[in-house]
C-alpha cells in the first residue's frame, strides 16, 4: 500500500470516531503532536506532586493528611499511565524525563506557583483539578486509544480530588476569621493562574486547529475557559468568597459571565521559566533524580547478577 492509502484508512477511522492504536499507521504530525501533549501531561502530574507534597508533613489533621497523601499518590499514578501511553508512540520514559529535567519539555505552568498556606491545598484541588477536568473529560474520547483509556481512569480520580479540594475550602471559608482570610487569599492568588491553564486565547493558539481535526481536542481554549468560569462562580458564592475580578458580570445575551482576560504577559513569562517556582520545581526534580541514581544502579546490577545466576544454574 502507498502512504496515501494508509492516510485514507487513518482519516476514515477519525471520521467514524474509531480509536487509533499504537500499531496503526499515523501521520508524523499526529504522532508528534500527541507525544508532546501526553508527555507534557505526564510531566505536569509529576511536577504537580511537588506543590501539594509541600504540605503533607504539615497537614492539620490525620484525616486531611491521609487524603492529601492519597491524592499525591494518585497524581504519581497518573504520571505513570501517561508515560506508558506516550511510550507506545515510540519514545522511552528516560528520554521524556531527560527532556523534563533539562528544561526542554514543558509542564503545566500552574505548578510554578507556590502553595503558601493550607487553603492553597484546597484551592489547588478545587480550581486547578477542576480546570484540568474540563480539558480531560473530552480527552476520554480522544482519537488515540491508549491516551483515551488512561484518561477514563484519571478523570474518575480527578473529580474525586476536586471534591476533596472543595471540602478543604468549605472548612476554611466557614471556619475561623483567620481561616476565611486564608481561603480568600488563596482564591486571589490562584484565580487568574487557573484561567491561564486553558491556554492562550483562540486567536493566538497555534496548535488548536489540527488538534480539533484529530479529536485530540474537542473544544477550544476560550470555550473551555468560559465554561469553567460559569461553573465556578456559584461555588465561590456559596463559600461567601469574592472572585478577584471587578469585571466579572453576568451577561444575559451570551448566558454566561463576562470576565477579565488573565495577564498573558505573566503567562508567557512563566512559560519562559521566570515564574515564582520554576527553578525550585526543576531543582527538586533533578535532586530526586540524581540522589536516586545509585539506587537505580544497584537495582540494575542486582537484576543482572540474578540473570547470570539463573543462566548458570
Amino acid at each position, binding site marked *: 500500500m502507498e502512504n496515501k492509502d494508509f492516510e485514507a484508512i487513518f482519516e476514515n477511522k477519525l471520521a467514524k470516531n474509531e480509536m487509533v492504536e499504537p500499531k496503526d499507521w499515523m501521520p508524523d504530525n499526529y504522532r508528534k503532536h500527541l507525544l508532546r501533549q501526553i508527555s507534557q501531561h505526564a510531566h505536569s502530574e*509529576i511536577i504537580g*506532586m*511537588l506543590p501539594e*507534597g509541600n504540605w*503533607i*508533613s*504539615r*497537614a*492539620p*489533621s*490525620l*484525616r*486531611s*493528611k*491521609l487524603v492529601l*497523601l*492519597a491524592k*499525591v*499518590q494518585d497524581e*504519581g*499514578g497518573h*504520571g*505513570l499511565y501517561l*508515560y506508558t501511553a506516550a511510550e507506545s508512540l515510540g519514545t522511552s520514559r528516560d528520554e521524556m524525563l531527560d527532556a523534563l529535567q533539562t528544561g526542554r519539555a514543558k509542564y503545566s505552568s500552574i505548578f510554578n506557583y507556590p502553595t503558601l498556606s*493550607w487553603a492553597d491545598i484546597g484551592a489547588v484541588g478545587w480550581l486547578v483539578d477542576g480546570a484540568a477536568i474540563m480539558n480531560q473529560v473530552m480527552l476520554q474520547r480522544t482519537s488515540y486509544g491508549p491516551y483515551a483509556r488512561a484518561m477514563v481512569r484519571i478523570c474518575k480520580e480527578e473529580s474525586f480530588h476536586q471534591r476533596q479540594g472543595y471540602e*478543604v475550602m468549605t*472548612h476554611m471559608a466557614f*471556619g*475561623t476569621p*483567620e*481561616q476565611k482570610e486564608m481561603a480568600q487569599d488563596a482564591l486571589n492568588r490562584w484565580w487568574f493562574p487557573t484561567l491561564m491553564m486553558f491556554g492562550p486565547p483562540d486567536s493566538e493558539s497555534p496548535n488548536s486547529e489540527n488538534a480539533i481535526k484529530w479529536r485530540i481536542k474537542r473544544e477550544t481554549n476560550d470555550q473551555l475557559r468560559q465554561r469553567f468560569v460559569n461553573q465556578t462562580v456559584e461555588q465561590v458564592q456559596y463559600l461567601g468568597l469574592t472572585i478577584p475580578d471587578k469585571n466579572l458580570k453576568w451577561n444575559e445575551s451570551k448566558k454566561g459571565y463576562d470576565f477579565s482576560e488573565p495577564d498573558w504577559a505573566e503567562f508567557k513569562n512563566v512559560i519562559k521559566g521566570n515564574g515564582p517556582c520554576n527553578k525550585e520545581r526543576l531543582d*527538586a526534580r533533578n*535532586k*530526586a533524580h540524581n*540522589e*536516586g*541514581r*545509585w*539506587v*537505580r*544502579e*544497584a*537495582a540494575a*546490577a*542486582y537484576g543482572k*547478577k540474578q540473570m547470570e545466576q539463573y543462566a548458570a544454574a
Partner: protein
Amino acid sequence: MTTQEALFKYTLRLGDCSIILAQRLCEWTSKGPFLEEDLALTNIALDIFGRGKSLLEYAARIEGKGRTEDTLAFFRSDRQFTNYLICEQENGDYAKTMIRQAMVDCFDLLLYSELTKSKDETLAGIAAKSVKEITYHKRHSFSWTDRFGNGTEESRTRAQKALNELWRFTGEFFEVEEADEILIKEGVAVDVKSFQNKWETELHALFEKANLTLPETVFMQTGGRKGIHTEHLAYLLAEMQALPRMYPDAKW
C-alpha cells in the same frame, strides 16, 4: 495501674510508633529514586498512618476524657510521645530508610500477627487489617535490603553504614513494662519476648543473604517508652503540629 490505664498506654504507644514512622516515610513522597518506588513508599506511609489513626482513635476512646486522635497527635509534646526511638530517626539515604523499615516491618509482622489473637476485639481487628499490609511492606523492605547488599559496592557500603547506625535502636522492641505485664496476663497484649528469637533469626538470615554484618558490640539505646527521645523528635513534631497549634480553635 488499672487495666484501662494500661490499655490506654499500650494502644497509645502502638499508635505513636505508627504516626511517627509514617510521618518520616511521607517525607519521601515526590522525592523517591524513581516513580514506581515513590508510589510504593507513599502507599506504605498511607497504610501506617491509617493504622496509627485507628489506634489513636481507640486510645482516645479508652481514655474517655474527650480527647480525639487529632488532639493526641497534634497537642502533645515530645515528652508525651512514647514511640520507639527507631521510628523517629531521620530518613537519611534510601538504604537507611529501607534498613530501618526492614527492622520495623519484621518486628511489626510478628507483633501484629500475635495481636490478632488479642482478647480486645478492637485491637485484634486493627491487627488483622495491619497484618495484610505489613506482609507486603516487609517483602518490599527485605527485597531492597537484599538488592542493596548484593547490588553495587556503593549500595552495599550505604546499607552497611545504615545497619551500623540503626542496630542500637532495636533493643527497645523487646522491653516489657508494667502496662505490658498487666495486659499480657489478661490476654490483651502481646508478649514480645515470645518472638524475640524469631525476629533475630529472620533478620540475621536477611543480613547474611545481603552480605551485611551486624555491628558487634552495640549498646542498646532506650527511652522512647518514657518519653525521653533523640533530638530528632521535637523537630519532627514542630513541623507536624505547627498549624493546629497556631490555630487551636480551627476545624480542618
